[in-house]
């Protein structure tokens, strides 16, 4: 055991394709992995070993929440004692203060996953600055973010209202076409002018960003203190976040069921119960042992312990449905293509929703976990993220949206589909706009599209550059997520299909 550990350490330390910082991260992960796992029953350990339940490689001793969404507005207006900063008085000071605090906001990847709803945050500091000055400042800020926080999980929110910061960020993002930061534009049919939505959907044609979030649906899910979209399409309470994410492989659960009835009455409830045991064990460690909730973020009121919730993730819906229906190979009767299969999927989502809404947890948002359609990680094989339709078998974008829209009401902490649009849309961006409006009007929480020829591609929810994948094989990448992307490309055949999105989050272990 000792030897294996040391071998791994030395392989990491001498790996030619990692930077010193990336090496430090992997070393830390390995060190944490050498600690004992939180106490769970043997049933849970077995379910984890056989790949039915997965802790997303969050580590053995959770000492930081998975996602943290600080109240940056409060921070800017009150300054920070811990960081020895006065309240910001102008745009430069506000940007500078944000740049500083980003380096003190932890997450599962050690890099902040949420950078704030920047237009709302910065508008109070715009004063009389002219458009070009604002543009220049934001452009430099954007370049800084990509180069110093090079991880496609970091996420900026803008919208739904029309303002100069929002418009300028869209302009800068389309110009620079960077991997980081990831970007969500909030759309509210009551406040967002059509022209602004059009600018956002034009951007998608340029660089497959931003994602468009259905603001009214998200806002209804959370209270007046607000929410944010972080990492890859996870919506979480502002001034809080997710303490942990545990996910259930529905495909495996379906394989263990005798038939559909057995699935609903026995297998599914049983494994959900094991999920809760793991959620409790992990969040208890974080909240009770790790001393995370004594940090300056708490002391200065930027986060509140009661606004953290566990995310109850699921994936492999497509395989589960096909397995329960006895559909072994892709056909017009498979999930995504047939009413009967889709209906069974909705029933599963509704059953999960009922379980999650009725099961209390010790550390939750309103004492509950939040249901999440998990977007896959790079180590997944033969199992489709969330409730998505398997890669390469997706129908046209309209049929695709119609098949999945019904699920969206249930996944309060996030769900996303990835639509691949062929590049003819570039000379007719109005079509993208129309598709987006249709999708949101049908109740999609999040609209995400990839244009087939874009160099920027989403692999499991984060963005990578196709050119970076090629380069990574040669000599390593500056961007943390390219490694994940390259792995996902090799394991999941993601590029077999056209360029595309999937969603999601976690850095797996070194060379696992």
């Amino acid at each position: 055991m000792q030897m294996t550990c040391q071998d791994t350490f030395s392989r990491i330390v001498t790996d030619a394709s990692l930077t010193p910082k990336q090496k430090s991260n992997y070393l830390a992960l390995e060190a944490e992995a050498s600690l004992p796992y939180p106490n769970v029953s043997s049933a849970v350990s077995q379910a984890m070993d056989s790949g039915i339940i997965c802790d997303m490689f969050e580590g053995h001793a959770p000492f930081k929440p998975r996602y943290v969404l600080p109240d940056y507005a409060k921070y800017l207006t009150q300054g920070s004692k811990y960081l020895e900063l006065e309240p910001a008085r102008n745009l430069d000071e506000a940007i500078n203060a944000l740049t500083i605090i980003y380096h003190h906001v932890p997450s599962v990847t050690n890099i902040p996953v949420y950078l704030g709803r920047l237009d709302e945050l910065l508008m109070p500091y715009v004063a009389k600055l002219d458009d070009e000055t604002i543009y220049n400042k934001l452009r430099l800020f954007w370049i800084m973010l990509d180069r110093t926080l090079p991880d496609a999980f970091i996420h900026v929110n803008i919208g739904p209202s029309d303002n100069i910061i929002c418009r300028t960020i869209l302009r800068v993002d389309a110009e620079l076409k960077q991997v980081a930061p990831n970007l969500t534009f909030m759309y509210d049919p009551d406040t967002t002018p059509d022209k602004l939505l059009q600018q956002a959907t034009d951007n998608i044609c340029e660089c497959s960003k931003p994602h468009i979030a259905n603001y009214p649906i998200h806002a209804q899910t959370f209270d007046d203190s607000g929410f944010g979209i972080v990492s890859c399409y996870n919506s979480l309470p502002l001034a809080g976040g997710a303490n942990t994410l545990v996910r259930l492989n529905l495909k495996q659960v379906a394989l263990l069921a005798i038939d559909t009835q057995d699935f609903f009455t026995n297998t599914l409830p049983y494994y959900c119960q094991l999920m809760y045991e793991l959620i409790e064990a992990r969040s208890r460690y974080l909240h009770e042992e790790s001393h995370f909730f004594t940090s300056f973020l708490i002391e200065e009121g930027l986060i509140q312990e009661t606004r953290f919730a566990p995310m109850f993730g699921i994936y492999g819906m497509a395989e589960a449905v096909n397995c329960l229906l006895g559909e072994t190979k892709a056909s017009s009767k498979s999930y995504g293509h047939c009413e009967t299969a889709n209906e069974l999927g909705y029933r599963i989502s509704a059953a999960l929703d009922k379980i999650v809404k009725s099961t209390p947890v010790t550390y939750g948002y309103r004492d509950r976990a939040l249901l999440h359609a998990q977007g896959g990680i790079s180590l997944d094989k033969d199992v489709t993220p969330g409730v998505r339709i398997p890669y390469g078998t997706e129908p046209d974008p309209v049929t695709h949206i119609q098949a999945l829209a019904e699920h969206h009401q249930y996944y309060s902490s996030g769900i996303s589909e990835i639509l691949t649009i062929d590049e003819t849309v570039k000379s007719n961006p109005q079509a993208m706009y129309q598709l987006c409006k249709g999708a949101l009007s049908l109740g999609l929480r999040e609209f995400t599209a990839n244009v087939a020829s874009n160099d920027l591609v989403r692999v499991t929810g984060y963005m990578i550059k196709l050119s970076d994948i090629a380069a990574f094989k040669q000599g390593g990448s500056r961007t943390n997520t390219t490694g994940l992307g390259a792995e996902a490309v090799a394991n999941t055949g993601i590029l077999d299909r056209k360029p595309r999105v999937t969603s999601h989050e976690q850095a797996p272990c070194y060379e696992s």
Partner: protein
Amino acid sequence: MLRVLEQASGDPVQQMKNERSATVTKILNFSCVDGPGNRLVIFLQGCNFDCKSCHNPHTIGQCDSCGLCIPSCPAQALSLHETDGSGLIHWDKDLCIECDACLQACPKQASPKTRQYTVTQLLAVIRKNSPFITGVTVSGGEASLQLMFIVGLFSALKSSPELQHLSCMLDTNGSLSESGWHKLLPYLDGAMVDLKAWQTETHKWLTGRDNHRVFRSIELLASRGKLYEVRLLHIPGKSDFDSEITALAGYLQRLPSSTKIRLNAFRHHGVKGEALEWQTCSETDMTVLAEGLTKLGITLVLPSAYL
């Protein structure tokens, strides 16, 4: 989520129109290349031109249920309905693996995979997709061969309060007669017309028909403000847009400024017969023609990709 079927508008004439049916080759829910915004595109079977360069030759003919395609199907998706005495070819969509072997096997440039739709049935499809689309485009084949069906469909759209915001477009080879256009114009928002060649001899050689009707259609549509787009398929060495560039540009210049002029590149995809020997249109070929036309004052829409 039951949707109300087409409210039987009290109008008996429209009710009759709603019974009309057409042979549909395919319906696309999403297209960015058949008019403004996202289009629901309905392809109707059958064409009166016989273009050597056709990219969808299986849309030209009408199936007569001869059954010759049946043995070519690897998935047993095709059969003749002998039992009900109709003797019609039957295509089982669920078994079909979309290999298109049947299209290769058919001697009549037809397809066993078509379906009859009434106007009422198509309205249901359109209603289901309406939040996603800017409008409906009827294409082909040559759609105008089933003119009265299109008139029925478009007039129904225009008189439906929930669907009348959708624009109604036609994709055509321009062969429709003037009296035909007059039946359609009240319900038509715009047309995309293919001009296959400038000289009538060239046009005849490429399509089997001369192009006088095509020019007449273009001019009629232009005068009514309904000429959305003119499409030129550039086949290097075969079409004559480069050799006749001055005359062509002069003509195009007289069209309304709102009319888009789209250049399409000839490819081998789907093509059968002698045209497979022809050289495809490269990006360079296209650039040469495009620069020539631009110099003569024509604004163009160019292909976004070359295959």
